[in-house]
């Protein structure tokens, strides 16, 4: 019962803030709603028992990535919103069509869910307890190569961002 209340409340926040993100005119407000949305998603992770991921979500997403967005929004200082000059070739219809496709997908999920229950996976042998430890264990054993690749990706992205953003090298 408590879980259901928490889920529906948080889900409402997640979707509500998401709608605000894409619909608000002022870009800075949009960024703020994005932060709130990420915080709500973090709450969802806590509900799912993934505390580590929740902390990462707040630390990296809300405290890091979105600050970058805010920086850029402040740096580019929009005079007049891009939406003001409407372009008739804009694919609004395609967007709505895709939305319809997703609705169909939602229906499919529901139908599938009723038809066949989800099978239980056998517990993997992880010799540690605690969410953070589990994630860490998998990250540094089975998924070590992807982890290294991810770190390389971040390094490359960092260099790329510096090259792009710096006016003269």
């Amino acid at each position, binding site marked *: 019962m408590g879980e259901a209340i928490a889920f529906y409340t948080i889900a409402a926040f997640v979707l509500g803030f998401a709608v605000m993100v894409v619909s608000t005119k002022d870009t800075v407000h949009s960024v703020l709603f994005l932060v709130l949305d990420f915080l709500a998603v973090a709450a969802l992770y806590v509900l799912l028992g993934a505390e580590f991921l929740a902390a990462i979500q707040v630390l990296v997403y809300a405290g890091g990535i979105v600050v970058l967005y805010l920086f850029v929004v*402040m*740096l*580019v*200082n929009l005079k007049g919103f891009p939406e003001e000059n409407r372009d008739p070739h804009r694919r609004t219809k395609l967007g709505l069509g895709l939305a319809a496709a997703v609705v169909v997908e939602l229906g499919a999920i529901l139908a599938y869910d009723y038809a066949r229950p989800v099978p239980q996976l056998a517990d993997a042998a992880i010799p540690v307890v605690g969410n953070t430890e589990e994630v860490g264990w998998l990250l540094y054993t089975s998924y070590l190569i992807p982890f290294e690749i991810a770190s390389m990706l971040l390094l490359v992205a960092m260099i790329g961002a510096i090259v792009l953003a*710096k*006016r003269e090298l």
Partner: protein
Amino acid sequence: MTETRAGAVTPAVHHGAMFDTNELVLNMGPQHPSTHGVLRVVLRLDGEKVVDADVVIGYLHRGIEKLSENRNWTQIILLTDRMDYVAAATNNVGYCETVEKLLSIEVPRRARYVRTILCELQRIASHCLWLGTHAMDIGAMTVFLYAFRERELILDLFEEFCGARLTYNSMRIGGLPLDIPSGWDRKVLEFCRIMDSKILEYEELLTHNRIWLERTKGIGVIDGPEAVAIGLSGPALRGSGVPRDVRKDEPYAAYDELEFDVPIGAVGDTYDRYLVRMEEFRQSLRLIRQATEGLPEGPIVGKVPRLIKPPAGETYHAIESPKGELGYFIVSDGKSTNPYRFRVRPPSFCNLQGLPRLVRGHLVADVVALIGSLDIVLGEVDR
């Protein structure tokens, strides 16, 4: 036009944007805590780097020079108080000596000695204020209060001498208005004793402080010839290694009878200007000690005519105020009881000319450090 990274040239349009990737115009002052009054500096910034600076002055203009042309010779003394209001006694001395030069009056030795004491006390007081505000601008707030504590002692001495604490009106043409109070010289020596240890205290907080060094070394470097070309004077000039001191070069008051050194800097950065002024504290104390101990007896006023009416002619006389060369240029027509033309060469004003040159290429934070390092008083800049 600005060169962009892609190699294309785009016009650097300034459309009043709040923040741009190109340049930002920042209006520093006239209401700003560290422009030392109503100075206004319009900075063009690239990020935080100062591309150019434009100094706007005149917010404290009271027309002292024009006013003086309509006052009689003695009334002008109190107007000079209001120029460099943190060093009023020096202004008085400079003016009175100029008029004495016009009148060819011989000033008694005792008066000249007392003038020297007052000037040097005033220099210490002014440097205290400079040190306090300069350090405060760079963030060392304790030095500010320490320096003001010692300045207070000097103000007490002045109060005892002439009754005022800021605008002294403490000179008369031809000498002094009154002799020093009894026991005043002992108090001056006592002050020198206190001040000796306090200078060490300031230096302990700043001179070898890493952050202070990083904030002042290499900031606003100006070499000797350029400093002369811009017209800097006083510690700002001596910091660049030019040993120019009016007290030594064209002695006035009793400076030719006393011993002192003129400290000079090596590089000409903010730190050198700081060191020069710190050394000047010591030299001033040395002068005060000599003058107080060797204070001659005798009259305090020379032979001054009842009606001061200098013969027709003009004269320029400069003294070394705490800020630099303070010169008075006075023209007398020989007929009226007021100057025909009165013009001041204020050290702050001339030193301020160097500010745009000094701040170029530095950061916003250095601008306040450099304003502090030039040691300006807006009352003197605008007059």
